[in-house]
């Protein structure tokens, strides 16, 4: 099973701030994903990557951006946080069909 880490676990921040959510995995998986989940709701894909220098937007429109400079690292950045960005953000990676999820970052934008 993959070891996948996310930091911070919780973040409270003011409107207009720039934030970066970190995601790292130690299993060498090429495929990595970011999902957004509102409380009590299903997960929605916002970004994915098939490998280094590969990034794509998912089905759910998002004002965030991602980068994939190293295989193990897939950070997500919000240039200017807004209250509508309040949500839980889950990072996942996988070798193929199966995906393994990090613990998530709960973001609250005031």
């Amino acid at each position, binding site marked *: *099973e993959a070891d996948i880490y996310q930091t911070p676990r919780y973040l409270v921040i003011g409107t207009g701030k720039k934030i970066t959510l970190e995601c790292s995995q130690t299993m060498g998986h090429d*495929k990595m*994903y970011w*999902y957004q989940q509102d409380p*009590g*709701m*299903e*997960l929605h*894909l916002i970004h*994915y990557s*098939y490998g280094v220098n590969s990034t*794509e937007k*998912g*089905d759910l429109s998002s004002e965030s951006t991602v980068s994939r400079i190293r295989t193990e690292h897939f950070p997500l950045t919000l240039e200017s946080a807004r209250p509508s960005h309040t949500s*839980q953000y*889950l990072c*996942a990676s996988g070798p193929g*069909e*199966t*995906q*393994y*999820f990090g*613990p*998530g970052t*709960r973001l609250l934008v005031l």
Partner: protein
Amino acid sequence: GIQVEQSPPDLILQEGANSTLRCNFSDSVNNLQWFHQNPWGQLINLFYIPSGTKQNGRLSATTVATERYSLLYISSSQTTDSGVYFCAFGGSQGNLIFGKGTKLSVKP
């Protein structure tokens, strides 16, 4: 796109009871999986089960691909089984598409 329906949406059990959660699909799906999201938000892989039956301890799952449904069985439920159970299937971008989940509360 393919529609997925999970039932029931909410379930309250007394500790020790058994339960069956269901996932119906509007069309054939690939890479069907079951997850448990604990009260702290962590998603835990339960089963990768595109077809057939698997068992892991008190949990088992069955997928009948030809009839487009999957079932998750929980026997002798414990309070630690509480949380939300999601089924998910493979999307065109290699991602997972999730159902809305079944929220399970197991009372002592």
